[in-house]
């Protein structure tokens, strides 16, 4: 396959000469070649999009731009000269800043410190805290994040952490900004804010690389798209290319329907999950809802609305002050994950890396954790059974991996996400609680996950799906609950609901909520 990308720095359409180019780069890990002979140019005032399935090699590629990996073949060219980037500092010295796909913050440190990490200001040999706070405040303002720079990062939700990460990269004032799936954890509001900043930077002549699995974002913010498949460059096309065409380039086939929701369950629509008056001081207020057999209940809301807390409370991961959770009519004990699992609840948490997976363990192990005990004989693990079931499930979910003995931490993000899902397939969960289930998952894999959701409801299960991706909520839910400030602000029938309707419910109580928080901080 010969990439059709022009290697010439100047293009006939008048595109400016690239600030940074990867020329024919190759990267191997042990026996596997994950990037092969790929050329990408990053030009000032342009947003170069990298598109590809999970594991296509996008992150690997950008890590060669930011000094984390060195190419095994080919070269990195900056300002027309071949360079080596032995470490992150070297890349930063050339004006390259990167927002990595996985969060790279120090949870125990403050927002301000994280933003200045690696280049804290000094005065008279000592740390200049004031300058650091000022830098942070400016960076946060720019991205529109309203948190105290002295706040500990670990206490923020994933979305806010992502924004801190973005603020950090922006504060570098880089010439070349690399963004690896920055929008995966964000809701529309924050995405708008981010894109506003990206446009400003484009005006200012910054060269950018942007990765996202949300195809609509590509046309919105990108200029040109490099499409990768299996580590090779398939084509470079303008960002205005229609979505179906992009999908075809990327997965090598057509995907007819991005949200293939089918409600096929024809049994009785019993209430499977019954949540009554769930309350946790300051987080959840009197949340009551039901999910019936065959139904997907979507939960939308702004960042910090309490959606994650709701799912965690139901799943037994967090305690609550009052309320009841019943599964098939039987109450669950508070804060008892194992009990919830036995009752048929499966929980895909918000962040696979910190809550979903044991990264150092194998795919088979990770798939089997929830069923380890139930399939055991006299306390001994059913090893052969667990492995063959793991194989079946990973095939079913099309997890891309060498074999089930591969370390899960070495899989691409989307494939990791599928492994977390697979755990509940194995457990045969009837009630699935999904928190941002397709964060960082490519279009193809996303459809596979949706099909899995369909099969769960077809078999008479119920799914509660929290997502910040509104098209997903609208496209895959049968019914939508909107949360705001810890309580249910309203309910919509998915058919015919619009993004605007959801948003207006979601922001309805936000002002009041902000006031509450301000009061809380004073007491």
């Amino acid at each position, binding site marked *: 396959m010969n990439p059709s990308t022009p290697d010439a720095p100047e293009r006939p359409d008048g595109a400016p000469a690239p600030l940074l180019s990867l020329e024919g780069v190759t990267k191997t890990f042990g026996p596997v070649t994950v990037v092969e002979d790929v050329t990408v140019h990053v030009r000032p005032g342009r947003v170069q999009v990298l598109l590809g399935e999970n594991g296509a090699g996008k992150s690997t590629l950008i890590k060669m731009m930011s000094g984390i990996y060195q190419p095994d073949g080919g070269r990195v060219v900056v300002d027309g000269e071949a360079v080596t980037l032995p470490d992150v500092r070297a890349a930063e010295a050339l004006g390259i800043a990167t927002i990595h796909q996985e969060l790279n913050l120090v949870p125990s440190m403050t927002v301000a410190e994280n933003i200045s990490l690696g280049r804290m200001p000094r005065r008279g040999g000592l740390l200049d805290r004031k300058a650091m706070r000022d830098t942070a405040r400016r960076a946060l303002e720019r991205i529109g994040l309203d948190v105290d720079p002295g706040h500990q990062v670990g206490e923020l939700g994933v979305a806010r952490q992502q924004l801190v990460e973005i603020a950090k990269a922006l504060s570098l004032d880089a010439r070349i900004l690399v963004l690896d799936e920055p929008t995966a954890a964000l809701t529309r509001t924050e995405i708008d804010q981010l894109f506003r900043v990206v446009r400003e930077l484009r005006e200012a002549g910054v060269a950018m690389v942007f990765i996202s699995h949300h195809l609509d974002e590509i046309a919105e913010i990108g200029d040109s798209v490099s499409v990768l498949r299996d580590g090779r460059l398939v084509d470079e096309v303008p960002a205005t290319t229609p979505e179906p065409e992009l999908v075809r380039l990327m997965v090598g086939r057509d995907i007819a329907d991005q949200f293939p929701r089918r409600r096929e369950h024809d049994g009785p629509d019993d209430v499977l999950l019954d949540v009554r008056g769930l309350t946790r001081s300051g987080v959840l207020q009197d949340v009551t809802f039901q999910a019936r057999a065959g139904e997907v209940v979507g939960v939308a809301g702004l960042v910090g609305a309490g959606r994650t807390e709701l799912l965690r409370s139901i799943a037994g991961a967090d305690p609550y002050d009052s309320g009841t959770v019943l599964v098939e009519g039987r109450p669950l004990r508070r804060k008892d994950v194992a009990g919830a699992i036995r009752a048929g609840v499966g929980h895909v948490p918000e962040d696979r890396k910190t809550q979903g*997976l044991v990264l150092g363990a194998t795919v088979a192990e990770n798939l089997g954790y929830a069923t380890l*005990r139930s399939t*055991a004989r006299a306390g001994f*693990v059913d090893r052969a059974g667990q492995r063959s079931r793991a194989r079946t499930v990973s095939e079913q979910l099309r997890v891309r991996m060498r074999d089930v003995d591969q370390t899960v931490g070495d899989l691409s993000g989307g494939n990791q996400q599928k492994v977390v899902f697979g755990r509940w397939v194995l457990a045969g969960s009837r009630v699935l609680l999904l928190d941002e289930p397709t964060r960082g998952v490519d279009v193809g894999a996303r459809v596979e996950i949706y099909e899995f959701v369909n099969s769960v409801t077809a078999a008479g299960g119920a799914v509660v799906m929290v997502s910040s991706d509104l098209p997903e909520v609208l496209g895959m839910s049968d019914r939508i609950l909107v949360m705001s400030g810890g309580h249910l602000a309203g309910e919509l029938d998915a058919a015919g609901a619009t993004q605007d309707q959801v948003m207006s419910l979601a922001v309805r109580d936000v002002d009041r909520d902000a006031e509450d928080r301000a009061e809380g901080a004073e007491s």
Partner: protein
Amino acid sequence: MTTATTTRPTGRGHSRVGRFLAENGALVGLVVLCVALFVATPDFLTGNNLLNIGVQASTIAVLAFGMTFVIVAGGIDLSVGSVAALAAMISAWSYASAGMPGWLSVVAGLATGALTGAVSGMAVAYGRLPSFIATLAMLSVARGLTLVVSDGRPIATASEVSFLGSTVLGVPVPILVLLVAGLVASLILNRTVVGREMYAVGGNVEAARLSGIRVRRVLVTVFTLSGLYAGLAGMLLAGRLTSAQPQAGAGYELDAIAAVVIGGASLAGGVGRVSGTLVGALILAVIRNGLNLMNVSSFWQQVVIGVVIAVAVGIDVLRRKNTRH
């Protein structure tokens, strides 16, 4: 440990042998050490001396097997040396002073170990103490109780205990005990549900919890097993000396932890194997044996021991780095 994240074993070996080596890197260090000693002193490679080494490794190895559970689950157990002493002392006391039959005194010793382990485990799991603190406290408490029970004097053990120090058909019993204890530990870690749960808890406690693993129960199990193994090590020590010593096992905790870490486990949790731990314990025993055989001055011995430990682990680190790319 800060470096742990970068040195996670990859297990990328392709052949079976390659894989075994990749997973038991310290073995290379052990072999290098043995060859060096064989060259340095002919006494080293005699059948008799190899048996000696086995016997001398047995106490630390058994402690380290127990420690492997704890470290795999992400904790640390500083109390093992003291618990070994307490178990031996309670056993000897229950035989000599409380008039228990010999076999029951063995049970009493093992039970003492398991019980103290369980107490540490509960302090960690339910009392939420860092395991370093809980077991440091137990180190002090168990040693104090040993002294209280014994009034600071050795007590002779039952013949059933002394049997553990004897030789049967030319094979020293401590070596048999070591092998059985190692096999059982390996079986628990690799084949049982709770064993796999230990890896999950040590690898990512939050993911383990959200998968329905009862983390606290796993923690209690882990420390109870460590205590039980410490009890067994105590019986070995007492058996070899035919008496329970009040100061027995003092400082052994560092040796036991070292054996586990030399064997490739990470103090960050989630990684570790019984076979590695055995190699670690053998490395320690071989160094000491070799230095004795070579009659290195006892002052310099400590210097050499330190250097050899660093080099043995260093070989492993280097080897891993090289197989990476």
